[in-house]
């Protein structure tokens, strides 16, 4: 069980974001990806899922040795890919329950059908585990959810769908201290040889609850350094400057620029 990202170049609206990214995740492994804002972390997760706005310029994404870049978004999901999004989308009028039910039904074989009673129990258990409250099932998908509720709802879906490879994109943002612990526990419980996890985060606190096997630092569209837990600590305390310095990475932001002809009042 492997997910391999090979020398991947990805652009959005003619801006090159990923610039030769390599990453291999095996079943049972947990990888953390850290890096400054705008460096392409979400782009990586979205392109693996097949987001329509991003374009692969070159490189490949392989699931168990087979390229998935020609597969549609839903096919990738049914092959076992999952993305807990940084900004989960609101879908008015569609209840959480109907949505998750449809997502499960689409994974069943032609002659199978959903045992609704069992499904309801599983759904209720999952929302209880995440302290989502009873009314959740019949609320519209993410609509009016608080930031933290949206994030918990992503993990609820993950629990229901049993993916093989899951990207969790800043699942810790918007969570209060208790919720963070809860989400951490829930994700840790899901760990198994049948699941590869890719955690995108800015902060150490998430990684206190979900212990990663590898920590990658991503800058300017590629992974520039890979290590273990000691990296997390250092980034938490010192930021990324030392990485850039050590590797001689030019900061794109510090290029001199002119203010040009900004209108000004005299």
């Amino acid at each position, binding site marked *: 069980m492997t997910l391999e990202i090979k020398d991947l170049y990805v652009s959005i609206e003619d801006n090159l974001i990923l610039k030769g990214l390599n990453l291999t995740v095996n079943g049972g492994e947990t990888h953390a990806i850290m890096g400054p804002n705008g460096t392409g972390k979400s782009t990586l997760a979205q392109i693996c899922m097949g987001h*329509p706005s991003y374009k692969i310029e070159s490189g490949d994404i392989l699931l168990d040795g087979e390229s998935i870049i020609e597969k549609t978004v*839903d096919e*990738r*999901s049914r092959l076992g890919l999952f993305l807990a*999004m940084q900004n989960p989308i609101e*879908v008015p*009028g569609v209840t959480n329950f109907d949505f998750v039910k449809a*997502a499960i039904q689409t994974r069943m074989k032609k002659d199978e059908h959903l045992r609704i009673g069992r499904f309801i129990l599983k759904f209720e258990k999952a929302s209880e585990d995440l302290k989502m409250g009873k009314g959740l099932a019949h609320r519209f998908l993410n609509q009016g959810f608080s930031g933290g509720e949206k994030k918990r709802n992503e993990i609820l879906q993950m629990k229901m769908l049993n993916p093989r490879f899951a990207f969790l994109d800043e699942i810790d943002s918007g969570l209060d201290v208790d919720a963070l612990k809860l989400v951490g526990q829930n994700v840790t419980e899901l760990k198994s040889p049948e699941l590869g996890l890719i955690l995108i985060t800015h902060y150490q606190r998430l990684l206190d609850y979900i212990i990663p096997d590898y920590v990658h630092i991503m800058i300017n569209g590629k992974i520039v350094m890979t290590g273990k837990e000691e990296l997390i600590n250092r980034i938490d305390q010192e930021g990324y400057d030392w990485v850039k310095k050590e590797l001689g990475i030019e900061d794109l932001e510090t290029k001199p620029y002119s203010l040009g002809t900004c209108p000004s009042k005299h």
Partner: protein
Amino acid sequence: MEMLNFLKDNPYLIAFDNIETINNANIAIKDNHLTFNKGNEFFVFLDNFDKFNSLNFTIKKEQDIKIYLITYQSRKIEIDYNFELQEKANLKIFTNFSSRRKTFLNANLKFTLAKNAKLTVLSALTFNGEVKLNETVNLNGLNATVDIDLLNVGGKTSKYYVNQDVFHNEKATISNIDNWLIATDQAKLAYSVSGSIQKGKEFSKCRQSNKGIMLSDSCEIMVEPKLFIDEYNVEASHGAAIGQMDELQLYYLLSRGLTENDARSLIISGYINPFISLIDNKEIATQLTSQISRLIRRKAYNE
């Protein structure tokens, strides 16, 4: 008379075609005039009915009435429906104008509200052919209130020309219009929605919202919202959001494995459900849902 099955033996059925009248509900009917003086839920069914050029409904003072007005036609029909709501009358009316084949409907729905009358209109339009519909509401009495929700699902080469006009002719009158428009194939939906508050009719509120999804490249939805306000001390607002299906919503559902067909139909049902849930009668709601899915299942989902 060709009748919807679930209505046949309904004790509150009133049905017309040009030959016979069925009045299970025992309502006072004189020629083309129906008078409602006992609170209840009534089903008015019209099969190709145009014996008169108008059908008139009076809701007596303080009566609480629900009417499901369902019309079926297989030829061109032109007719006016007039509703008079007396003081403190409360009418909740559901209308569904349907055609058995491609044809033409020209209908004027006119509502007149006295003091403290309350009107709720749920209009479903799933017509095959061409519709010219005028909904006119006169809020003539103090505190008269109207709430209109309209769901129009247009497919094939259907054309809908709909005018909605609300006149706030008295103080402290309230109107609320929500239109939900869905077009596919080559359907064309043209709406003009207007609210008028005359001078001196202060403390009135007039609000409208128009939402539309276009499911094909060759369909059209046009909405012209208008507010004519001649008084300062009022609240008035309008909004329109017409566009394609939201690509990010679609992506989100796909990313959980729903096929494109399933994802699209779930989003569309999410759009329709809030309207359907306003319909109290289960059978009427089910009938409408299946009408709609017949209309949009085929083409809308594979574009």
